[in-house]
Every structure is written in structure tokens, then in C-alpha cells.
């Protein structure tokens, strides 16, 4: 592993960059399809929701503290708090839950 470490890092970086760069450099015209526009509108919500649940429940040392963090994040984001407030609030909730 040690001798190849920077080769690993280079492979990660190149693949990731190509994934991001190809659509942005190749697509230079407006896509007319209403369906595609609709799909692209819903896309980030679907991805982030899928990434959050159920992974959030195993992100801390136990499911109870994770649930506490999830609920606090849900309430804070429902009331439109900033990214930082929601993230920090969730972390603090986990910390407090794990004191018991």
C-alpha cells in the first residue's frame, strides 16, 4: 500500500474529476425536453434523501443517539435554519444523547 499511495490518490482524483467535468464541457446546448428538466429539478432531492436514510442511523456509536440527531436536524431544517446550525445542532444532540 505505502509505495502506491499517490497512485491511488491520483486514480481517485482523475475518475472523480472526469465524472464531474464531462457533462459540463460536452453539453453546450439547451436541452429542450420538459421531462429532462423536471428530472433534473427533482434529482438533488432524491439523491440526498437516499444518501441520508438509512445511513444516518448508523453514523454514530448507537442508533438512539443517531435518532436524536436526526430528529433535531429535522426540526431545525423544517424551520429553515442554516446548514451550519442544522449540522451543529444534530452533532450536539448526539453528544448529549450519548451522555446517558
Amino acid at each position, binding site marked *: 500500500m505505502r509505495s502506491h499511495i499517490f497512485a491511488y490518490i491520483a486514480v481517485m482524483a482523475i475518475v472523480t474529476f472526469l465524472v464531474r467535468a464531462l457533462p459540463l464541457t460536452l453539453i453546450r446546448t439547451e436541452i429542450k425536453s420538459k421531462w429532462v428538466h423536471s428530472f433534473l*429539478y427533482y434529482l438533488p432531492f432524491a439523491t440526498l434523501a*437516499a444518501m441520508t436514510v438509512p*445511513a444516518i442511523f448508523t453514523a*454514530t456509536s448507537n442508533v438512539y443517539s443517531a435518532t436524536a440527531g436526526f430528529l433535531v436536524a429535522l426540526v431545525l431544517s423544517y424551520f429553515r435554519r442554516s446548514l451550519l446550525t442544522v449540522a451543529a445542532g444534530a452533532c450536539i444532540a448526539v453528544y448529549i444523547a450519548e451522555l446517558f
Partner: protein
Amino acid sequence: MKPGMSNNSSFRENFLAGLKDGLPICLGYLAVSFAFGIQAVESGLTVFEATMISLLNVTSAGQFAGIGIIAANGSFLEIAASQLIINLRYSLMSVAISQKIDPKLPTLKRLGIAFGMTDEIFAVSAARPGVLQPSFSLGAISISVAGWVLGTFLGAYAGQILPDRVISALGLALYGMFLAIIIPPARDSRPVLYVVLLAMFLSVLFTYAPYLRLISSGFRIIIVTLLSAGLFATISNKDSGES
């Protein structure tokens, strides 16, 4: 379709707006990348290596998976495939942003925007009214990436001195950030709410159901995204950009 086309606000104004929208992302990234730095060092990487990964990749899930494969002495093919699958969602976001920038924007600027295409930067970019200005992206990306890299360095360098309980709590930072992005629009729009609920349901199903659970987590996210966004694009047409 393009109300902001004749955008006469200056570079400086857009850049500052980018910095402003990027600041909370930067602070959220500090917490998440701090956790990444700790884990990278635990996996046997040096502080420098961990920091370089964050500077060159700027992904969350992809980086966490990557250091796992490096630690397990996986093949180059395996690490390339993992990054492709886990990060493929960024190409969908890049397609969306390709429709929001000036069609005449030169390639170099497109590459710059692509470099910083993360879930959070995509979210603030998509929420910009009208055409996305590259100066806005420059502001949002530079401050966010700075937070991501600095947090990794600090976590890798000093993370071991933190108690386990603090490290456990930091594990929720990333997801808190995701919820802060998706919940407010879900509150305002019924179709968005249903997309979120459907994606969460399918994600749970694909994680635990027999056979379905054999699908790797990167593919799972792509399949769930295609199914939920595709279904609602079909039954509830909503024009992008107008949020």
C-alpha cells in the same frame, strides 16, 4: 426562460454572493472533513496524504470509501470503480448545471465549476435566480474547498486527542447538512416532499431487502435517484430552475 440573461451585476458582487452562500457550507465541511481526517489517519495515511485526498477529490462518501479500499490494499480497478459509482451523481448534477450556465462559457471556466461540483455547492448554485455566473461559483467553491481541506488537516493532525464521544457526534454533521438542503423545499412543494419520502423508502428497501441489499451502496444511490426523480418527472412536470 432566462430572466437573468442580461446580468449586469459585477464580478465582485457575484463573487461575494458566492462567498456568503459558501460560508455555511465551509463550516459544515469543517466538521465533516475533520471526521474524515481522523479516519484517514486511523487507516494508516499520513496527515499530508489525507489532506491531498481532500484537496484533489472534494467528495464526502467517495473519499470515505476510497481510504477504506486503500487500507484494505484493494486494486486500482476497485478504487476507480468505487469512485465512479459513488460519484456518478455529480455527473447528473453537472448535466443540470450545464443548462444553467451561459452556453458560450469557455471550457476552462466549465472545468472550474466542475471541480467544485458537490451536493451542497450544487444546491446553492441551482437555487441562484437566472443564469449561474462563474464568479458566484468561484466564491462558493473557494471558501467551501478551503473548509474541506483545512478540516481534513486538523482532523488528521489533531483528531486523536478528541474523546470518542465527540468523534461519534461529528458523524452526524454530513447528514445534518443534507437535511438542511432538502427539508425546506420539501416543505414548500408537495412533489418534492413525495420525491424525498419515496427516495428514503426505496433506499431503506434496497439496504435491507433480500437480494436488493447485495447491490453496492454507490449503485443503490444511483438506482434510487433514477427511480424516484424519474417517476415524479413523469407524473408531475416541474420546470427546473424555477424553485
